[in-house]
């Protein structure tokens, strides 16, 4: 009869040494949890006391944490967030294929493709180098200023174009790192079967590359979620702009707190999903290892 409930051990009784080890591990785990919990509570308490005893706290409380302002602004900021979500969905749907295509073309060898590689290198360098907010000013106000009727002039469209140009360059570099991380022997194996360059890329290299870069892509995605808020400078009424409008009319900053909370809520699923994918990848690579 084993004293342990684990079914995997079956009927084999555990030795005294192992029982002692388990007792020690349980004890240590309990102690670490207790220490962590107490220290967190103490820190939070100190922080709370420090903030609420600051000389301007009453002022801050009514300006940033006004309950009535919160419930008044919430529906408008939430409605603005819906615009963010739509821009985000459209932008990411274009950014992913753009990034993948740019990355794949940058790795094509051969003198014929030199111009393509050159143009794409310039694209990545330029759009990764320009701060998004500057790009929004240049394209968002520059394109309508041309006065051509066939060019888009709405803030939403031009803002999305800017996000695609900027994040397309970031995604391209992430995908390129993924492509280069696939071992050359995989390419040799595919080519030795008679697959051409494009087939090798599509069937052998890219599936492995994409899998490898899902965590960093999700990281970029979380970053994009927030940067969508920058299109507010083009007059798009997104969550940030909606909060700003309320702030301008009431001089109360609670709407920004509303926006902050909504952005956090938006980011959590992506962040947890990124963690999950990363953990899965690590689990696959080192099944069973302790460190």
């Amino acid at each position: 009869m084993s004293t342990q409930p684990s079914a995997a051990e079956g009927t084999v009784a555990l030795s005294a040494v192992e029982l002692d080890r388990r007792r020690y591990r349980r004890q240590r785990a309990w102690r670490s949890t207790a220490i962590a919990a107490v220290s967190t509570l103490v820190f939070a308490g100190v922080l709370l006391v420090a903030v609420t005893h600051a000389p301007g706290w009453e002022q801050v409380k009514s300006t940033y944490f006004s309950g009535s302002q919160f419930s008044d602004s919430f529906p408008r900021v939430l409605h603005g967030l819906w615009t963010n979500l739509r821009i985000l969905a459209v932008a990411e749907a274009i950014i992913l294929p753009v990034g993948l295509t740019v990355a794949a073309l940058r790795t094509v060898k051969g003198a014929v493709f030199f111009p393509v590689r050159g143009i794409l290198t310039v694209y990545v360098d330029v759009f990764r180098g320009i701060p998004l907010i500057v790009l929004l000013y240049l394209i968002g106000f520059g394109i309508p200023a041309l006065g051509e009727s066939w060019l888009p002039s709405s803030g939403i469209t031009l803002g999305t174009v800017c996000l695609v140009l900027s994040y397309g360059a970031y995604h391209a570099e992430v995908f390129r790192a993924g492509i280069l991380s696939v071992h050359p022997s995989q390419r040799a194996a595919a080519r030795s079967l008679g697959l051409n360059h494009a087939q090798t890329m599509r069937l052998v290299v890219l599936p492995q590359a994409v899998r490898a870069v899902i965590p960093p892509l999700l990281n970029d995605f979380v970053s994009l979620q927030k940067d969508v808020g920058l299109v507010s400078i083009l007059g798009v009424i997104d969550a940030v702009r909606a909060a700003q409008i309320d702030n301008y009319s009431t001089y109360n900053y609670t709407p920004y707190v509303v926006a902050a909370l909504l952005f956090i809520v938006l980011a959590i699923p992506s962040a947890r999903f990124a963690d999950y994918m990363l953990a899965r990848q690590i689990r696959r690579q080192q099944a069973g290892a302790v460190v």
Partner: protein
Amino acid sequence: MTAVLNVSGVRKDFGDVPVLRGIDLQVSEGTVVALIGGSGSGKSTLLRCINLLEVVTDGVIRLDGEDITDPRVDADQVRRRIGVVFQSYNLFPHMSALRNVSLAPRVVGKLAKADAESRARELLARVGLADKANAYPDRLSGGQQQRTAIARALANDPRLLLLDEVTSALDPELVGEVLDLIKELKAQGMTIVMATHEMGFAREIADQVCFLDQGVVAESGPPEQVLGNPSSPRLRQFLSRVLRHE
């Protein structure tokens, strides 16, 4: 009768370093040629040149009489007539054994999915892995992975099979299953060029053994002669080093 493979005067430099300095080799239909030699002697490079994974610096390689080193030749066309098995298997980790083997018939041979898969199942059965069709490479032992890789290399029905030290990465108890499979392939008439460190196996299966040394075929002939009665001191030295552990 023209040889399946004819290598003449092949040289290959990597930068300033000459690796192959003029290789001549004839492989007739249904024969097995074993390439032996120390590491860095050029065995793998020669195999990679034959498969056009490397561009030769000089010389000519003919497959069934056709000059495949001519740049006007479609390299993908040539490669599908040559099967290659690598030392570290190089199976595609994101594909099941069945998809690994059916990939070339589907993509290169333009077979319908069902036809390609039934062909792949036949090949897996031939290497004794009929029950592992849906397993992914990381669920297979080294020997099973290498046998899958051999099935994959046979999928295009190649004229020539190149084996690059296919047992070097295997645990000793798994070497036998792969060597048995190669013996079967020879019995079925496959033409094979293999780089190997398994001297016992080379002696048993090869029709011709070539000792590569410093980028040339230093000695070549039937296995009894090359392995049993080596004429050059360098080959004797090489054999005594390798055979000490066998």
